[in-house]
């Protein structure tokens, strides 16, 4: 008797979970279906629900007729650059916020919080002028620098949480060995918070991969367009076929999803390790 109720519960749970998975996966599945639906059938009623196997050539076509390959490479450069720079900049202040009580700590904390509130659209005009002065316009470096400004605050907070969880005694042992403070951070602390570093790396990577407003404004050379700008711009006024748009959308989405699936183990572990524990 007991086992049957358990089974019943299990079944219900599975149904709910499968339902949720269906909802989360459907839009991406629909990109696939739309991109492989022949353009004559796009306006069919009822719609085609399965990907059209004969239409795979659409991916080759958009790859050959647009710069999507180049856009993706640019997005990857921006994403990787943002990730590396964000982590480099965030580790030490995170450590300081976790381990020291110093005059001005409130200012640092406040600065990190307030910068989370600034919309990109608000800063883009003054940043354009600053970038002009710094010769950063029309460079991927510029995009990396500006994206990092938006990821560093949240990453610092998350890393601080993780460092809070590292026992101080481990560090003491290290400082007796004569390691300098920065050495301690890099040799002792960082390996211990590796999962959280991975989690924050993912956050930074996605930010760089997805960013649209700056990429659209601060870069105009077509060869430096990122995938977000390329895709948004591809939706033309003049009869851009929807299946090509969706094909590019899918080519832009899948690398991020695969990358995420690859590292998600660390993300969950990293969030647990310190994360936003308050």
């Amino acid at each position, binding site marked *: 008797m007991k086992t049957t109720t358990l089974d019943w519960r299990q079944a219900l749970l599975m149904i*709910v*979970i499968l339902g949720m*998975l269906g909802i*989360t*996966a459907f*839009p991406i599945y*629909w990109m696939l279906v*739309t991109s492989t639906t022949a353009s004559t059938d796009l*306006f069919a*009623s009822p*719609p085609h629900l399965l990907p059209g196997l004969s239409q795979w050539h659409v991916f080759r076509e958009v790859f050959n007729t647009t710069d999507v390959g180049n856009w993706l490479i640019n997005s990857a450069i921006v994403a990787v650059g943002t990730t590396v720079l964000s982590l480099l*900049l965030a580790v*030490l*202040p995170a450590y*300081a*916020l*976790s*381990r020291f009580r*110093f005059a*001005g700590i409130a200012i640092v904390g406040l*600065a990190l919080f307030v910068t*989370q*509130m*600034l*919309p990109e*659209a*608000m*800063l883009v*005009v*003054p*940043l354009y*002028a*600053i970038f002009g002065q710094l010769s950063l316009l029309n460079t991927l470096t510029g995009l990396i620098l500006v994206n990092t*400004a938006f990821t*560093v*605050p949240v990453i*610092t907070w998350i890393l601080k949480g993780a460092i*809070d969880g590292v026992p101080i005694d481990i560090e003491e042992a290290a*400082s007796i060995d004569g390691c300098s403070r920065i050495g301690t951070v890099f040799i002792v602390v960082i390996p211990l918070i590796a999962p959280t570093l991975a989690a924050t790396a993912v956050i930074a990577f996605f930010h760089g991969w*997805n960013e*649209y*407003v700056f990429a659209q404004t601060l870069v105009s050379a077509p060869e430096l367009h990122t*995938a*977000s700008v390329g895709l*948004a711009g591809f939706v033309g006024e003049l009869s851009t076929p929807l299946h090509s748009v*969706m094909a590019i*959308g899918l080519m*832009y*989405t899948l690398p991020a*999803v695969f*990358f*995420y699936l690859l590292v*998600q183990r660390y993300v*969950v*572990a990293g*969030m*647990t390790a310190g*994360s*936003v*524990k308050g």
Partner: protein
Amino acid sequence: MAADKQTAKAQAAAGGVGWAPYLFCAPVMLYLLVFQAYPLLQELYLSFTQTSLLSPGQHDWVGWRNYTDLFEQEEFSQVLVVTLVYTVACVVFAIGIGLGTALLLNMPFRGRGIARSLITIPWAAPPVAVALVFIWMFNGQYGVLQHLLNFLGLSSGMEGWLDNPSRALTAVLLTTVWQIFPFTSVVILSALQGVSNDLREAAVIDGADRFSVFGAVVWPAIRPTVMLLTLFITIWSLRRFDLIWLMTQGGPIGSTNTLVIELYRRAFTYRELGEAAAVGMVGLSLALVITVVYFRLTVRAERAAGH
């Protein structure tokens, strides 16, 4: 408060605070100064001027006029209302669904690991791509959602979503929540994994039902995480741009016109940088007020909880 004890110990070990924390924080502060604070101050200044996007170097000082103009316009109160509704709904649904999902994914079942990965897919999808596929799915004529509603007999068809003032905000919200709830669920799930199973089992042995176990054991453990998530989702929702802009540009009839959309339109369509900056400052003030209230509330809650 364990962290405080650790901090004190660390500081003692280092022989006082010294210059180390300042050195550690200097690069990031300098960085934020250049890329955030400096442009922010420029925006603050611009908000008191009339300045054209085409000649941002020439400002006519107008004092508070941009601000008084905003609050004289009836549409601006609509912008504030839409912003608040959008933000609150994002928080409620992203946290609610995220919490529910996290609790489900914390139960033992076969394939749990795979489910945990797959459920987070939306978070990894780029907003520009998400906006485009949802625009297509919400299409009033050929959209798959309309077909579904027609099939289920829930709609007479052709009411439209993104072009319908009474449904556009719902459509934008559905899209947003779909995109962000996986993040809240991952974070809450990781907090749940920190909840001691012994405590939970002890409570169950004591005869507590599911709800009281949740209230007595689980909720207190994850509450700080949920609270902080609430703050972050609030702030991020206040400044979300690409999804809304690409889906509706704030329309129809202003029904999805949030502060950031209004800011962008004034800056780039009307080319009025001063007005746009004023809108931005109103948004920033709103975010600051919410943050201050949040910290007041959490401090009070922590005191009440006896910390």
